């Protein structure tokens, strides 16, 4: 009898606590290793989001558990598994690189936990699990936009130079596709190994082929060496134009890359110099909270990932399971610092405006200044 009373009492104490159980988000990011900058930017943005929107939504406390995977896929998978099994997280988020997202996809599917991809950009990712939602960018989205734009500039002959890994090949394929569809000719497609010691031979080959322009995609950080050598080799003076994707002139690195980047044209979903009140507020709050660090595209992707989750929690009244949360995120639409964005209801991938930008000096700093926009771009690889 005593025991029963105790049990009842315990149940009475526990059940309100159960209703109060926090909504746990397992955030897995490369906080160390070569992709540290991605982790730093996204985690700072997530912190900012929590400060801006509070840690309670629809009567539930939100708790973010940050884990470092150092950019190693095995670790991402292990951390995800631990977060699901031990911490009982309600959602997974982060994923700095394509392999990290791919390694975790089966866990999201089996555990029926929404997985918000905040950085990895290869097209196939969202196909790998019905629980994956992406708030980052999709490589074919930006690459195809750049392909069409380049062709529209009267540029007839192009060489492509991309880093030899998933997103690089996506970039090459979709730039080429749209550029050729518009009547352009691709003279050659060069793939540079990621651990490449020297761009000289690739640049020399570009120079000798005499294209009208060279299209470049490298992950953030590698681009600077390329652009420096492009100038040093005098390719700009032979009239070869340089067009690239936003990763190459990453806001996080742009000032350190220096004046050689002036005039480089890129396509990308976000620039810290994007006009508008939402972004102005975001940038100034981000800088204040992070000792003057400028937010880059990754930061915005992370911020929007949190927005997607918050909206879904609110929509499901704080009670939704994984499936309901993903359903709630489908078709969601809001004003991000980068402009209006939507989660495609069918593909769970992001639909966003892609901007054409040129590196210019503004207030003594280098920025990607937007001069053109293609509205509501879907992932072309999925709309076929």
């Amino acid at each position, binding site marked *: 009898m005593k025991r029963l009373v105790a049990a009842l009492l315990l149940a009475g104490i526990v059940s309100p606590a159960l209703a109060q159980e926090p909504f746990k988000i397992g955030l897995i990011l490369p906080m*160390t*290793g*070569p*992709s*540290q*900058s991605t982790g730093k930017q996204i985690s700072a943005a997530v912190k900012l989001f929590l400060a801006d929107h509070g840690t309670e939504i629809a009567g539930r406390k939100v708790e973010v558990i940050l884990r470092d995977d150092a950019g190693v896929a095995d670790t991402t998978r292990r951390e995800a598994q631990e977060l699901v099994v031990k911490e009982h997280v309600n959602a997974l988020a982060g994923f700095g690189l394509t392999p990290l997202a791919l390694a975790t996809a089966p866990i999201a599917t089996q555990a029926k936990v929404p997985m918000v991809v905040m950085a990895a950009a290869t097209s196939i990712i969202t196909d790998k699990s019905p629980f994956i939602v992406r708030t980052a960018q999709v490589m074919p989205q930006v690459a195809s936009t750049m392909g069409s734009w380049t062709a529209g500039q009267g540029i007839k002959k192009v060489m492509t130079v991309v880093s*030899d890994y998933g997103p690089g090949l996506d970039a090459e394929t979709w730039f080429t596709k749209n550029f050729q569809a518009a009547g352009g000719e691709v003279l*050659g497609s*060069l*793939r540079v*190994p990621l*651990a*490449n*010691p*020297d761009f*000289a*031979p*690739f640049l*020399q*080959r570009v120079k000798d082929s005499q294209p009208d322009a060279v299209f470049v995609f490298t992950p953030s*950080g*590698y681009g*600077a*060496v390329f652009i*420096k*050598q492009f*100038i*040093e*080799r*005098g390719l700009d003076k032979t009239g070869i134009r340089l067009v690239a994707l936003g990763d190459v002139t990453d806001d*996080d*690195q742009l000032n*350190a*890359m*220096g004046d050689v980047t002036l005039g480089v044209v890129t396509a990308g979903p976000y620039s810290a110099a994007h006009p508008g009140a939402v972004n102005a507020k975001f940038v100034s709050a981000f800088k204040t909270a992070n000792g003057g660090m400028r937010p880059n595209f990754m930061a915005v992707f992370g911020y929007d990932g949190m927005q997607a989750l918050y909206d879904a929690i609110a929509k499901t009244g704080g009670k939704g399971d994984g499936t309901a949360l993903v359903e709630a995120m489908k078709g969601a639409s809001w004003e991000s610092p980068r402009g209006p964005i939507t989660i495609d209801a069918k593909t769970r991938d992001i639909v966003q405006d892609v901007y054409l930008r040129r590196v210019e000096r503004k207030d003594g700093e280098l920025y990607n200044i937007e001069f053109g926009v293609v509205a509501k771009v879907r992932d072309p690889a999925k709309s076929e």
Partner: protein
Amino acid sequence: MATNLFDGLAYGMLLFVMAAGLSVTLGLMNLINLAHGAFAMAGGYITVILVNRLGVPFFAALPMSFIGAAVIGLGLERTLYVHVYRKSHLEQVLFSIGLVFMAMTAVSYLAGSEQQFIKLPAFLASRFDVLGVSIGAYRLLIIVVCGVLAAALQFVVARTRFGAQLRAAVDDPTVARGLGINVDLVFAATFAVGSGLAGLGGALGAEILGLDPTFPVKYMVYFLIVVAVGGSAGMTGPLLAAVLLGMADVAGKYYLPQFGAFIIYVLMIVVLLWRPQGLFVRAGR
């Protein structure tokens, strides 16, 4: 064509200066030091800090990158490496790879994981034509500096008293000690100079190879190939190997971009099948 050879030569010379120290420690002192690239990285970061933060002129920072890396090398040799000289190769590998990871983490903690860029004097970014060959000023600088160093090294090892002591100390430390050679001092000095050279190479190479905390791992393979292909006879072997690899790498990436990254491995396999001990081997080991 000629421009490619020139670029390859510059790249090869750079590899040589960075790997020279390794070929001495591995080939002569019989110590497997996988942390060699960490000294190159140290030299690179010393230059970045001096030039970008403290405003030291680039040319004044170069010797300091040598001295800085040499001092670090000497300190580690006296405190840590001295204990592993006589240990098995496996223990040396484990020890030095551990050191690499510590160095990478330390650098990324102190300086961040992003790429570093050294602010170079403007004239080094210029380019000029010689007999129709387009030459970059910076690469020319690399060839000149590294060429002079290579000649000096070869001279020291092959012709000076110190070189003779070093070779003696390596061949038979016990007898060398009996002849009054301070073997510990010779090893320490050699290790320090090797580290210093790596540091200078890292400083010169940052512009071309990039510089971030993964540097020691990213280029470890290249250093080891230089030593493996070059063999252990003095400085000529590694020099030739480095230049050969540099040129093959550049030419391969230019003419066969789809196999570009693989060419140097093919070259290594071919050379090692033909001469398993490397291009040049000292007799009597």
